């Protein structure tokens, strides 16, 4: 796979939000306004880039058995760093993202990429993968936020849209609207998407949350896990 494909797969073919359905919690919660979505996307991309680079650089040093705790500590470290930067330079964003900034630690996308990609590939490839995946995450988030903000609030990036501002569907900015728009977007991807991801490619091994995550290809995982733990 060449470098360009490596980058672009995160945006369309393997979009972490709309195709792989990872990181649903921040997607639903921070897509109420475009500004929040961009902020969340940027924060997650920075964490993903740093963690992918460091993890792929240390892939031969970290013992296989304790790799997940190691990854979590590394990711938590970068999240703390980003949290402090956001607090210092964008306090308004810190306030509106609230709890979801520290919760980047448990974002499935980041641990998933570490496990699926960074611990098998070189530093440069991992960095490109991280940028692509981060861009895909940000794009999907922004797309969803645009729909919710334009129709739910009648504004785009805070600028009022004539005609829509008087006829807003405020439910879209509330919790039910989040689920609804997300459902519609995934249905649209199912309808028009030509690249169906293969089940094995995004196997559950990549994600510690696999058995409980909403990814359709993982639905069989809880039974498998039950078998494993029964043994």
């Amino acid at each position, binding site marked *: 796979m060449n470098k360009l494909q490596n980058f672009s797969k995160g945006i369309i073919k393997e979009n972490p939000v709309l195709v792989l359905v990872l990181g649903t919690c921040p997607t639903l919660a921070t897509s109420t306004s475009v500004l929040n979505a961009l902020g969340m996307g940027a924060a997650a991309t920075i964490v993903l880039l740093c963690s992918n680079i460091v993890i792929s650089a240390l892939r031969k040093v970290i013992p296989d058995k304790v790799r997940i705790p190691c990854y979590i500590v590394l990711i938590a470290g970068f999240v703390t760093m980003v949290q402090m930067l956001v607090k210092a330079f964008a306090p308004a964003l810190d306030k509106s993202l609230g709890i979801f900034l520290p919760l980047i630690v448990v974002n499935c996308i980041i641990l998933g990429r570490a496990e699926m990609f960074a611990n098998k590939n070189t530093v440069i490839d991992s960095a490109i993968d991280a940028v692509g995946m981060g861009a895909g995450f940000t794009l999907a988030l922004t797309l969803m936020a645009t729909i919710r903000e334009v129709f739910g609030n009648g504004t785009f990036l805070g600028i009022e849209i004539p005609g829509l501002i008087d006829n807003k569907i405020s439910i879209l900015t509330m919790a039910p609207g989040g*689920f609804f728009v997300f459902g519609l977007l995934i249905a649209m991807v199912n309808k028009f998407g030509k690249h169906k991801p293969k089940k094995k490619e995004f196997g559950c091994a990549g994600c510690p949350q696999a058995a409980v995550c909403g990814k359709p290809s993982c639905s069989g995982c809880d039974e498998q896990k039950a078998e494993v733990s029964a043994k």
Partner: protein
Amino acid sequence: MTKFIVILLSAVFINNYVLSRFLGICPFLGVSKKLDSATGMSLAVIFVMLMATAATWPIQHFLLVPNDLGYLQTIVFILVIAALVQLVEIVLKRYVPSLHKSLGVYLPLITTNCAVLGVTILNITENYTFLESMVNSLGSGLGFFLAMVMFSGVRSKIEGADIPESFKGLPVTLVAASITSLSFLGFGGVVENMFPL
């Protein structure tokens, strides 16, 4: 006492973790297919939430804050939760095998559940006392339980429905979640009016 009731009820109904705060969506969508797995998962979540709060609240207030280490909160909390879950699993396996059999599968998955890390951090940011934090965690857990059990009922109905091809699977589940969460909007303001402070 009223304060505890208000915290408990608003955590269950108004600020429901899944349906209005968007925490713990992954297990909500993934494990709500069958009623028994939904119950098992939510019981494990309630259990871990209470344990995690009992462990992280003292750490934050007696260890991190006095030593000016507040910025380590995220790292310390996630590690404490991960260690705690492992410990609980080992203890249950050894001493209460029957409980381990029903909850054990779900325990390791809870480590990375954002609802658990979320509740511990929210308890700190809301400036709750220890008892209030425990009540809030219990309420959040119960809210999760309620949402999971309700939703597993909704989903069993969806299974038999005739759905357009592109809506099959996740999209229709999300739309159903949207309607379920709509019903929870109705609880807004109810608790405050029931127990005026």
